[in-house]
């Protein structure tokens, strides 16, 4: 079991409020990603759950039990750090087995469990090596092995893939997701990379300035962002925002359209007129950065190759079903 509930959790460092009252319900076995810009408090929130920081207010319940006064070791969670945080003087075997040794398991049982975890992570040939003799990806796997071997109630991941190169990151992303599904253990994963968030999560928590902006499934966040912040943060390239007359016509202070929901037509169409200032041709996609005069810069995405270049005039037609409306406070307007 690994159900985690936060009730009004707060954290301040002196006069600075880092977490301003977080309420959250994380179901057993789910993969929840905390995402947000740097300094939004996502890592702090994770460390509060881990017990590495003390809460300034509120409750953290693990399987219904308030753990705010329980030391990290007794919470039954395990954590994978951004820096891997492997014990440099211990072999891979020692690293993975350290937690079990602390619990006082007999040696042969530790060995059996360590070897099983190593097999799951393809680490068997490296069991007797020291961390410094491993590559970045292998070190990361050792850190994950150390987390899974204890059979925790939940895994906590603190930006674990940010030190890896792009190709390895994609591969590890898939591995972590697969492993979590296979074990069925609750996972909380912190990242600033919204692609990681979208691809890995069952549910995403978007944080900004110490507040939870929205909590929902990736598609929910994409299709029905609760406010301007979430609308702008989720999706790449980011959503276009238009204010003024065009927004007022639709009864909103701001309207938003995602780049992929703008139809690109040659000049003379009925949409928003503009001049292409930059065209990015990726083969699979074409991104156009269009200077639309009073509307500002707009980004449009075309699936496939489009032979348009900087300086060409275009007309962008928003999909009327996919226009997001926001009030003057930045909150989404429905209906």
């Amino acid at each position: 079991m690994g159900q985690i509930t936060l009730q009004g959790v707060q954290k301040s460092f002196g006069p600075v409020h880092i977490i301003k009252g977080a309420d959250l319900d994380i179901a057993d076995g789910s993969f929840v990603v905390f995402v947000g810009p740097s300094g939004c408090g996502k890592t702090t929130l994770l460390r509060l759950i881990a017990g590495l920081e003390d809460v300034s207010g509120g409750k953290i319940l693990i399987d219904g039990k308030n753990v705010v006064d329980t030391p990290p070791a007794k919470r039954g969670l395990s954590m994978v750090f951004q820096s891997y945080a492997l014990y440099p003087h211990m072999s891979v075997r020692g690293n993975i087995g350290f937690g079990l040794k602390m619990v006082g398991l007999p040696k042969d049982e530790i060995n059996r469990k360590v070897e099983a975890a190593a097999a799951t992570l393809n680490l068997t040939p490296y069991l007797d090596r020291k961390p410094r003799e491993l590559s970045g990806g292998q070190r990361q796997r050792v850190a994950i092995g150390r987390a899974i071997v204890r059979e925790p109630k939940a895994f906590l991941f603190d930006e674990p893939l940010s030190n890896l190169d792009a190709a390895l990151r994609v591969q590890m992303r898939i591995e972590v997701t697969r492993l979590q599904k296979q074990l069925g253990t609750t996972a909380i994963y912190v990242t600033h990379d919204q692609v990681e968030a979208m691809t890995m999560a069952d549910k995403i928590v978007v944080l900004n300035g110490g507040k939870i902006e929205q909590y929902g499934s990736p598609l929910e966040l994409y299709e029905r962002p609760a406010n301007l912040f979430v609308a702008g943060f989720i999706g790449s390239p980011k959503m276009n925002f238009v204010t003024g007359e065009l927004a007022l016509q639709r009864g909103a202070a701001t309207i938003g359209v995602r780049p992929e929901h703008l139809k690109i037509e040659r000049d003379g169409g009925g949409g928003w007129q503009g001049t292409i200032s930059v065209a990015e041709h990726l083969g699979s996609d074409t991104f156009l950065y269009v200077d639309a005069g009073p509307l500002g810069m707009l980004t449009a995405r075309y699936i496939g190759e489009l032979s348009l270049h900087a300086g060409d005039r275009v007309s962008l037609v928003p999909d009327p079903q996919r226009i997001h409306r926001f009030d003057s406070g930045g909150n989404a307007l429905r209906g």
Partner: protein
Amino acid sequence: MARMATTRRVVISTAMAWLFGFLIFFPILWMVLASFKTELEAFAIPPSFLFFHWTIENYATVQERSDYFHHAMNSIIIAGGSTLIALLIAIPAAWSMAFSPTKRTKDILLWMLSTKMMPPVGVLVPIYLIYKTFGLLDSRIGLVFILCLGNLPIVIWMLFTYFKEIPRDILEAARMDGATIGRELVYVLTPMAIPGLASTLLLNLILAWNEAFWTLNLSTSHAAPLTTFIASYSGPEGLFWAKLSAASTLAIAPILVLGWFSQKQLVRGLTFGAVK
């Protein structure tokens, strides 16, 4: 061309390095040579470099006149004792400053170091009087105590820089893995800090072994370490160069051997944190 220039540069810099190395080593070499000369040859002008009448009579005289082993034992007790006590105090101090610093930590560290900026002679009279009152003059405990306190700031600084280099994440990982503070200490921190502890220990041992100001002023015979033993050869009756050299050679021999075998640790310890 470029290659020749490089080769020439290597040859010149190697030669310079040897020259400087020799210049620095020369006084020690001269002392060792003088210890095998007779008193007359020791201050003969012009001095003879290698072609003199080699003798070991100085060593015999030195051992006869004053008990080398008694002083060596004092040196070992005083240097070793003061180092161990300093480490026992410094480890927890450096630990807490490195891992749970407060607003004043930097100030405390600087304040500790500032005590080393004061010339010791400035406090000689009060300390001498305190030692006299408490009967600590010419006692090993007294010397252990003063050398320990004198070197403590440096020991704490060195350990602090070492502990600072240990990533916090690793300690937190151990905490998540269920290690209590005690086990974190035994299984994670201490093994990681061993190189730092070792070089601190060595350096402090050398500093304490060579310390002459307090040992000369606060001891006479019973607790006198090797520094006092050397100094006794320059007395009002005159300067006995050859015997003084023999005594000095004997005094520095143990620490020289220790330094030779641990030079890698020492260099690492002294330059730690300087680059990177």
